[in-house]
């Protein structure tokens, strides 16, 4: 299998890291044994835990303007396991920074086409019946570079704008019922209290279906960068519509046509028209190990191919893997549980013959939708739709064991 990090820590690094760990727990006099391992009775207890000092995967941060408030950070998918992303590594995309919010002062205003306009405190919100649900969160722009022909070099850069999270909160339908939703309400404008008061118009059907008002993330309170203390979660829908730092829900009869649902998060086709209110993330899959930028042991031998598949329209039904450039495909094994609109891990046993190979995955969701190739997607949408680009992503395994992206011919 591929080494978990681009460069394995050398023996010297291990010694230094071990010594640092000891220093940190207040036993500077003990020295690390010469094999780089430490033993002993120190429990290293910390009020708020940290991963091992040997573990280095981090988010890849990209600023998107010269002002620090706009940018993204991508999840290191090649280093993670299973269907839930650690909160510290969950991807981010911000349009106007991360506000600091005292939850005791935070309020949610629900107004517009309701019988009773209401203001809820966080205590109120937490008193409603709660649910927890595991689902993915994905930026509408995940992997858009590949559509334009950038051939992103590794899976963190290509697909890192997706994470799997267990969310906890209140079904939005309960809160809307509390306010007395009027039949004339067709849209709900969700607005954050961040600097740009991020606003999105959400069709009322989604609000009443599976939308959640979320305060919990992976068993603890939301992280600030995920919308602390309250965010909207719309399972399977593009990340931006899952408004963070939620402060207001306005029930209305028409969409606001806000900048983030017109200028951004719309897909420009080659005929010059753009598609609007395209919320659902369609099914996609990608191999995370071995993947671009990593190296596997050269020569013939066994390697497990790992990957993730997910669909904003339901459960993943089937994942297939090809290790011969797409000529033949074989079924991958899906890791249980396979959940609605959640990351689904898959694996495929690969007996590599040691020769250069192109490996890739494709998936089908429970609606029968098949993940397209880049050629099929570009034939339908052209090069500039950007958002919702969900094509198959191949990786090339060289005889040296190095893994690269496959150049895209535009």
């Amino acid at each position, binding site marked *: 299998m591929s080494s978990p990090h681009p460069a394995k820590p050398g023996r010297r690094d291990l010694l230094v890291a071990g010594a640092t760990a000891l220093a940190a727990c207040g036993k500077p006099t003990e020295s690390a044994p010469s094999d780089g391992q430490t033993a002993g009775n120190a429990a290293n207890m910390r009020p708020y835990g940290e991963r091992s000092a040997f573990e280095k995967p981090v988010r890849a941060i990209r600023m998107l303007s*010269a002002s620090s408030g706009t940018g993204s950070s991508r999840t290191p998918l090649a280093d993670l396991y299973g269907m839930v992303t650690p909160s510290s590594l969950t991807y981010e995309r911000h349009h106007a920074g991360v506000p600091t919010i005292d939850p005791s002062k935070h309020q949610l205003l629900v107004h517009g086409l309701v019988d009773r306009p209401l203001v809820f405190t966080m205590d109120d919100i937490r008193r409603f019946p709660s649910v927890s649900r595991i689902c993915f969160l994905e930026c509408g722009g995940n992997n858009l570079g590949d559509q334009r022909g950038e051939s992103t070099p590794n899976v963190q850069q290509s697909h890192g704008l997706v994470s799997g999270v267990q969310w906890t909160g209140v079904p939005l339908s309960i809160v809307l019922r509390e306010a007395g939703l009027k039949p004339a309400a067709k849209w709900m404008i969700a607005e954050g209290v961040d600097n740009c008061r991020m606003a999105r118009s959400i069709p009322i059907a989604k609000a009443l279906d599976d939308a959640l008002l979320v305060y919990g993330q992976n068993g603890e309170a939301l992280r600030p960068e995920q919308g602390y203390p309250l965010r909207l979660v719309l399972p399977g829908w593009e990340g931006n519509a899952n408004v963070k730092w939620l402060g207001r829900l306005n029930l209305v009869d028409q969409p606001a046509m806000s900048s983030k649902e017109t200028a951004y998060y719309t897909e420009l086709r080659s005929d010059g028209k753009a598609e609007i209110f395209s919320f659902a993330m369609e099914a996609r899959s990608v191999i995370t190990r071995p993947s671009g930028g990593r190296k596997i042991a050269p020569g013939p031998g066994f390697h497990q191919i790992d990957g993730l598949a997910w669909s904003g329209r339901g459960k993943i039904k089937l994942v297939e893997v090809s290790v011969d450039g797409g000529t033949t495909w074989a079924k991958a094994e899906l890791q249980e549980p396979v959940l609605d609109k959640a990351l689904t891990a898959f694996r495929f046993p690969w007996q590599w013959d040691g020769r250069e190979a192109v490996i890739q995955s494709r998936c089908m969701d429970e609606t029968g939708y098949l993940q397209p190739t880049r050629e099929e997607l570009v*034939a339908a949408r052209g090069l500039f739709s950007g958002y919702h680009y969900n094509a198959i992503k191949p990786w090339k395994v060289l005889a040296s064991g190095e893994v690269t992206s496959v150049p895209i011919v535009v």
Partner: protein
Amino acid sequence: MFRLLFSAVGLAVFAWVAFAQAPVYGLGRTAAPDEIRKADTTVFPDGTGLPVGHGDAVLGEAIFNSRCALCHNAKGEGRKGEYPALVGGIGSLGTKKPVKTVGSYWPYATTVFDHINRAMPFNSPHILPPNDVYSAVAYILHLNGIIGKGDELNEKTLPQVKMPNRDGFVPDSRPDIKVKR
């Protein structure tokens, strides 16, 4: 049959009434009309939500130079890789080099007002009084050749501005890709 239909309709009506009935949990407090008015700044394409006020590109130029040009550049041309351009690209959307800006891509002038009102200037938003926002919008639209320099924008005229890409948006057509297997 008739009865069945009748009771089905009755059930649906009952379900709706049940949905719209009294609160179940008694949580939250009644929002005061005043706090709703203060919070509700959303501007809709038909002009709903626009504050009373007016401005034009002459006034807007001065506001833009002092509050916006620092980032978006003197004529709204932006700074490559640093700040978005607010002008240009009109007519480019269907070509091999589409350029999306307020002028070429945004379908409604109301959205420009709403965006500036809620998000700009980027590092100190929510400071511009309505008249300054009208003027900033007017200047950006004027730089794009959409309105004249002396044209007044107010809560009545702003929604009437026809943006070049007003008819450029179509509903989500997915699933739209033909996959061969």
